[in-house]
């Protein structure tokens, strides 16, 4: 059966069509979910796409976490449903407490828009199950606030529980421990700053993101 991928869209989200396109190209069935509807519908997988939800006012993701759809996303995640937050979606999942830590302004206050090398650190997550540990993926980043921070105890927990999913080979933003993506303890909620949906076909410059999105299908 075709996997239905719900793509959560807030006012200010701007990557939902890219995610929907990539899902379709890879054989899934995308469904756009509007933030004001308190449901994830019939989705088998939920993706929070990138952008600037609610203008990112106050802090990235701070307002978005109170959108009606987020209670449904949290419920879906609690029941073990796969949830992935890309870029702004990662920021929202952290604000919502579905992932630990926070993403703040890049070190050096540089907006980073470039293709980077990422190392897959674990394949035991919904997003990396089709990848290989140690595999290097070339995927674009495009953010001002991707600098992952958390307290020492949280970092220790992330390391010990194998919750660091992706690391930058060369740290572009000051992110703690070179972290580009993490998962929750249940391994069904993953957040990452890079945009795999922008690297799913050779014509885009890299198809390395396909292995991640295909892991969801």
């Amino acid at each position: 059966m075709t996997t239905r991928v719900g793509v959560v869209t807030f006012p200010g989200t701007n990557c939902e069509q890219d995610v929907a396109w990539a899902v379709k190209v890879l054989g899934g069935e995308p469904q756009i979910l509007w933030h004001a509807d308190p449901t994830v519908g019939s989705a088998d997988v939920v993706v929070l796409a990138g952008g600037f939800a609610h203008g990112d006012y106050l802090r990235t993701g701070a307002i978005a976490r109170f959108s009606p759809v987020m209670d449904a996303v949290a419920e879906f995640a609690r029941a073990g449903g796969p949830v992935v937050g890309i870029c702004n979606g990662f920021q929202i999942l952290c604000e919502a407490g579905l992932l630990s830590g926070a993403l703040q302004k890049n070190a050096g206050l540089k907006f980073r828009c470039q293709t980077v090398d990422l190392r897959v650190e674990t394949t035991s997550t919904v997003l990396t199950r089709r990848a290989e540990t140690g595999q290097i993926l070339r995927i674009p980043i495009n953010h001002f606030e991707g600098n992952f921070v958390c307290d020492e105890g949280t970092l220790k927990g992330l390391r010990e529980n194998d919750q660091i999913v992706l690391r930058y080979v060369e740290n572009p933003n000051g992110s703690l421990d070179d972290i580009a993506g993490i998962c929750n303890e249940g391994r069904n909620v993953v957040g990452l700053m890079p945009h795999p949906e922008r690297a799913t076909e050779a014509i885009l410059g890299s198809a390395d993101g396909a292995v991640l999105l295909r892991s969801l299908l």
Partner: protein
Amino acid sequence: MSSYEARIEVGHRPGILDPQGGVIERALPALGYGNVSHVRVGKSIRLTVEAPDEAAARSEVEEMCRKLLANPVIEDFSIELFPGDTPETPGQEQV
């Protein structure tokens, strides 16, 4: 019910890197201020709240800070309360 103006300061928790503070701290010596250190950049939020008394107002504003205005993972906050609403704060009068 009484009105209270709350002046809320949100800043980075100790030990959390403050990229804006760092950039300003490196910029000031270029203007001749070599004697500056510990630059921290935060947010100032002002609002007027209606509450039966100051303790109730404070408790409600603290709750707002914990739920929305600050992210406890990386930020601290402090609250000052002033009786009476002051709709035009000095910051808003300036052009």
